[in-house]
């Protein structure tokens, strides 16, 4: 377990005239509605604890009013918490003096906004270099850097345009380039793609994932869209009414929802696009390692099937069927099990999305072997297990998943 980059402990946020005064009530466990009715204060966030690791995309998901936008503004203290600890590496962010906080915001974090937050009076390239201009970087350097980032996000040639001349998707690319331009370690993205239409949104998601593979930033991403969360998140936290409901990897959330609320969310998710082969494959029961036909045939009897995956020192080789073996056995039992008895069957990668392997799985005569990069047999994916996962929910919770 790597040391967490950001740590949030016991974070509370109360909105109202005198938030501190009602903290005892909050700690006494009174509900949000009770507090609002009695004091007129709104409990925005309640006892948030989370750790964010270096280099991951951490998605905070929740519906509107769940406090997710409030929460993300605590990371760079655009909003101050009523109570709680925010730590970045060894820096206690809550103890920073105003000047230090400015420095912290300049160099450590950058942010992308839902409605872009671009400056309409500056050109695209000036917008992208905004962070650097605040840092006091000279004009030539910062414009050159901004140009590079504009190219990276695919907006070369738009430097001298004004934001109002660009489409929504292009504007958000400018927003993204601006955030990347300061080379800050952490990227805060507040519903960054929510204002875009679906096609552009998935394009931007792809671009973000692609960029992340190169840049390895730590990204905190806010969204109200679970599909989006599952698609880009390494880990997901689900927020409801200011409380953290569940935290975990996408497949944990999908396959083991913590309560009815999460389950209701998960129900409508397109699992084929959210789960990988690894999440649903069964352990490899049909592994056959044998030198001769006879040995192989014996193994075949143990696994109780009419085919198996032949694996030798070099990894997975192909499929052998009972029929072929029996035929060969009649000729010569101690004959070597060689390639001529194997049927070719391409394996699938454990990291592949279910969606991408549906055709192969359905077309293949046998369950598909799951093979990792080194050729090792990791598991098998049958039509049945695929259908179960993509089908009705109730059945899956009974299944053992790894």
């Amino acid at each position, binding site marked *: 377990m790597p040391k967490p980059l950001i740590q949030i402990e016991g974070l509370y946020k109360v909105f109202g005239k005198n938030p501190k005064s009602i903290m005892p009530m909050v700690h006494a466990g009174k509900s949000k509605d009770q507090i609002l009715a009695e004091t007129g204060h709104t409990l925005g966030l309640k006892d948030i604890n989370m750790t964010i690791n270096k280099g991951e995309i951490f998605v905070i998901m929740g519906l509107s009013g769940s406090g997710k936008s409030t929460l993300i503004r605590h990371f760079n203290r655009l909003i101050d918490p009523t109570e709680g600890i925010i730590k970045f590496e060894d820096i206690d962010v809550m103890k920073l003096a105003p000047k230090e906080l400015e420095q912290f915001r300049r*160099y450590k974090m950058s942010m992308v906004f839902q409605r872009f*937050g*671009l400056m309409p009076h500056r050109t695209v390239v000036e917008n992208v270099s*905004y962070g650097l201009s*605040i840092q006091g970087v000279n004009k030539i350097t910062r414009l050159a850097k901004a140009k590079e980032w504009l190219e990276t996000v695919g907006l070369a040639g738009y430097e001298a345009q004004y934001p*109002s001349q660009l489409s929504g998707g292009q504007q958000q690319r400018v927003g993204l380039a601006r955030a990347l331009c300061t080379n800050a370690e952490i990227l805060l993205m507040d519903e960054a793609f929510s204002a875009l239409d679906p096609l552009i949104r998935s394009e931007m998601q792809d671009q973000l994932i692609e960029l992340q593979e190169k840049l390895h930033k730590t990204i905190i991403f806010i969204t109200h869209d679970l599909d989006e969360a599952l698609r880009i998140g390494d880990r997901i936290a689900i927020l409801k009414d200011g409380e953290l409901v569940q935290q975990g990897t996408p497949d944990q959330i999908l396959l083991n929802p913590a309560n009815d609320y999460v389950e209701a969310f998960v129900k409508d998710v397109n699992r084929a696009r959210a789960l990988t082969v690894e999440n649903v494959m069964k352990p490899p029961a049909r592994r056959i390692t044998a030198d001769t036909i006879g040995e192989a045939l014996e193994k075949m009897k143990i696994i109780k099937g009419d085919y198996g995956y032949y694996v030798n020192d070099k990894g997975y080789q192909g499929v052998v069927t009972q029929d072929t073996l029996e035929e060969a056995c009649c000729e010569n039992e101690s004959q070597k099990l060689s390639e001529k008895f194997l049927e070719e069957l391409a394996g699938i990668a454990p990291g592949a999305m279910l969606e991408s392997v549906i055709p192969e799985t359905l077309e293949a005569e046998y369950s598909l072997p799951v093979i990792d990069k080194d050729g090792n047999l990791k598991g098998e994916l049958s039509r049945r297990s695929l259908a179960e996962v993509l089908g009705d929910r109730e059945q899956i919770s009974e299944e053992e998943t790894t």
Partner: protein
Amino acid sequence: MAESSWLTKFPQMDRADLTGIRKTLDSAYRDFSREYGETIESFFDPLLTFLVWFEKLLITTPWWIVIIVVTAIVYMACRSWKLCLGVVISFLAIGYFGMWENTMRTMSIITVCTLLAIVLGIPIGIIMASSNRAQSIITPMLDVMQTMPAFVYLIPVVMLLGIGKIPGVIAVIIYAIPPVIRLTNLGIRLVDKEVLEAATAYGANSTQRLFGVQLPLAMPTIMAGINQTIMMALSMVVIASMIGVKGLGQPVLKSITNQYFTLGLFNGLAIVALAIIFDRVSQAYAKRSQRHMGGMDNA
């Protein structure tokens, strides 16, 4: 008669007391102005020198140079030949009807007043926008300045500084400054929260936020305020002429007292012409400098 009088007649203050109050206040202020009048006047001396110099400059410069310079400024501000043509024609007409000198005087005082109003008004507007308390204190003061009849605050100014240009400038500014203050405040308060938040998130300090985001984004509104300030300053010219400000106001005043209808009309029209020029130019400039803001309007 004394018993029931408060029912039918307002129980007003004793006449003697009222006179007493007036006398005390008046004499206190008179003493104050005798005591400090000189000091305050000398405080305004540089301004007076500048006013006189600027007026002289406009009057002594040959008329055709003035027209060329003004037209050039107008063209730079709005890039419109039509407007420039309008400016040339109206100036020629003004000169032809014998109002050149007065027009130059009015132009000089309006220019100075507007500049002063902007220099004073925008910072006050910024302070107002940055604190709700400042706003709640300044707003009623602006209300008073806009609604109090100009003559009322002319009295103490004249008592303090006598008759002349400086009291005129002060009166014009008091009357004309509220729009620029109000609209600066409004403009800054209306700046898109997310853009401001973005600036903060990138570590901008309050100065960087003010000059990098708030003022530029508030500019259209501030320009509207400046435009209003110019218009109000021009409309104040006639009243300011009552305390000795020379210019287009004085002939108007003369026509009122002597019932010279045509003289009044001509000078009134000259004021209108100036107003239209100032208005169109400042608006065209505002529009041109803000063409990238708000939507896809690239006109």
